[in-house]
């Protein structure tokens, strides 16, 4: 017992002082991309061809990236001599609508706003989420799990991951939703009492990720006809990005 107390004393306080201060991100962290439109030659399209999920859209005049498909792999940065696309260390990526995930040379991402008034009143201080892994590779699941550890401690904001959809206020999907999981996801969603929210974490659950258009899956949460309140892109998104998304939804962060 003494050893346990000593060890606890030595460990000290490990919870990050977030959101007052953001934890340090790794120096090679790939956050929100930035597009320098003026240098792009429209007849090149190397980045478009080399993007594994065809997330880069090139029209006559402009370049845009669909963050819902983006795997943040950096192929587009390596192939471009003018460095037109660069990934910054901006971890804020969460949005409310699927169309908001398309980022163009204006380089402005319409970040997620809080839930509407009535929902915020119910969920703002206590939000229970049921996480379903629907064909995920376990990357997003691990980073969602990390939020309950003492470094992030999502519980202090009233957010908890629960064991049953009957206890939940919303569903969080990781993975492209395989056809083998489609029924389970739908039943879990139906079992959550109204009012409820839905959150999509990771490229797979937003668009199918690397498995886009495979017949074994349905291209993510929209393929299961679920209305989504929060999209968090990434492959997998850093726990800070996921945390940021949640904080915006329950109005603990605004800027």
């Amino acid at each position, binding site marked *: 017992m003494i050893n346990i107390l000593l060890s606890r004393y030595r460990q000290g306080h490990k919870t990050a002082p977030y959101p007052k201060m953001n934890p340090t991100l790794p120096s090679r962290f790939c956050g929100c991309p930035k597009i320098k439109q003026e240098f792009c030659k429209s007849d090149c399209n190397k980045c478009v061809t080399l993007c594994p999920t065809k997330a880069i859209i090139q029209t006559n005049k402009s370049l845009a990236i669909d963050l819902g498909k983006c795997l943040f*792999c950096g192929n587009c940065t390596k192939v471009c001599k003018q460095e037109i696309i660069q990934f910054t260390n901006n971890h804020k990526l969460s949005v409310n609508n699927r169309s908001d995930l398309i980022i163009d040379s204006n380089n402005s991402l319409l970040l997620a706003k809080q839930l509407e008034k009535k929902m915020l009143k119910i969920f703002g201080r206590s939000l229970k989420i049921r996480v379903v892994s629907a*064909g995920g590779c376990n990357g997003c*699941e691990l980073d969602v799990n990390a939020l*309950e550890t003492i470094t992030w401690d999502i519980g202090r904001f009233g957010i908890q991951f629960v064991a049953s959809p009957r206890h939940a206020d919303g569903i969080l999907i990781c*993975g492209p939703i395989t056809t083998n999981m489609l029924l389970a996801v739908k039943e879990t969603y139906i079992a959550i009492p109204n009012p409820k929210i839905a959150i999509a974490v990771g490229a797979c659950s937003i668009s199918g990720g690397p*498995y886009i258009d495979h017949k074994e899956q349905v291209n993510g949460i929209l393929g299961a006809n679920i209305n989504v309140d929060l999209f968090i892109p990434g492959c997998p998104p850093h726990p800070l990005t996921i945390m940021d998304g949640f904080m915006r939804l329950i109005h603990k962060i605004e800027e």
Partner: protein
Amino acid sequence: MNNYQFAKIQNGKLLPINSIPKLKINEFRNSIISNTHNGKRLLCLCADRSLNMFAVLSDDEKKTLWINCTQLYSNQYQSLTPECIQAHMFEREMAEQLNIYPQNHPYLKPVRFNNNLQKNNSFTNETLSLESLGPGLMDFYTIKGKEIHEVAVGPVHAGIIESGHFRFQCHGEMVLFLELALGYQHRGIENRMLGKHNFLHLKYAETIAGDSTIAHTWAYCQILEGLANNMVINPNILLIRSIALELERIANHIGDLGNIAGDIGFLPTSESCGYIRGAWLNLTAEFCGSRMGRNWLCPGGLQITNTKEEFSKILDSILKIWNSTESAISLMLNTTSVLNRLEGIGKISTIQAKDIGLVGIPARACGLKIDTRKTHSSNIYNKIPIEISNHSGGDVYSRTIMRWFEIKESYKFLCSALKKIIQTDEITNRPSINVNHLISNSICVSIIEGWRGEVLHFATTDSSSNFTMYKIVDPSFHNWFGLTLSLRNELISDFPLCNKSFNLSYCGHDL
């Protein structure tokens, strides 16, 4: 081993297809059965669409790999499983993927419930009708009796873990039999690896099992490097890759120890491991930007060139985090109430482990000395060897303490490896492989010791150098059956603990 029945093969090196002995089906069958009875291990039994069936065996004592093949002329053959249990999952997989029916297989059921089942007639008999076949919808082994009850768990589980279905036959609290139905995470990766190589394959390799990104990606890179006429990789690059692999191993083992501690209610360690695991993952992220090790390895070398300063900084961070790591885990393993809870639960005997072809941590926890880093990767680990840990209990405690042994060994390796890299003058990056110049009509077997166990990739090319077969064997493919054995005659309330002591991959199994 007979040289005319098998060809010797090296990990990650190509072999022309026509140098592999092509035996008649009966001889093929007997060669595998007799050698597995003599202590060799069946690493892989698979077939391509032209019904060429391959077998890869390992002689762990002599550190050699062997391969042979046969051509099937009909969709049926005599099953190997009754005489070689290690083949059981592979035969079920071939029946499902290629409609190859193993006669007298004692347990023929689908593996992944892929979309092909409608056209498949391997599974139809009086009790299994195609209409009722779906993931989790099949005839489970049932025990009848007035006091027997059946418990079903999953696919959606209480915690944040992947999806799978478990069916228990119980008498009171005692589990008499456990059966699994997986396939919920099936995304169809293997089929997409066929044909002409394309750059999406690297992304598939990275996400086969997202927590084993480095292991699977390295196995995939080795395949391409082998097929690129045995391309020689700079030893420093191999050293950096092995640093990545050991970082992945440590982070996941710490996570497992934390989960096991949490499951038995020992909160001091479970809470500490939460933040310590994050600290180790952040070290991987310092190298490549991704906590899971994505966008780091690539065929031919690495995608990132790290500087000496970065390596030094990471070595300092490792030395700093080690004290907390050691203190948290020793606390758990020195507490008698913890040991009391873990010992004697979920035991598998050494004979069972050998019979079913268990690999990785569960195998080493049963006393089997199986580790690819020692047996088939001498080119990588000869300068800085890793001692392979062992324990003979076969129970939850053995599998738990094995993880601590491996963390210590990996830590020693990391310190030596990083010091060596820092002293090197030139840390080179890599060329890319010209995939139009892969050698045709060849095979390559690539094995990496991931943190769960042995990851195996096996590819064959045709005359145009396109992939005609790409088989992925995650260690979980062998080991799920071990979990079902460990639950027999145990209390059902010990299931979460046993499951966490194995911590197998659902998506690695389902592909």
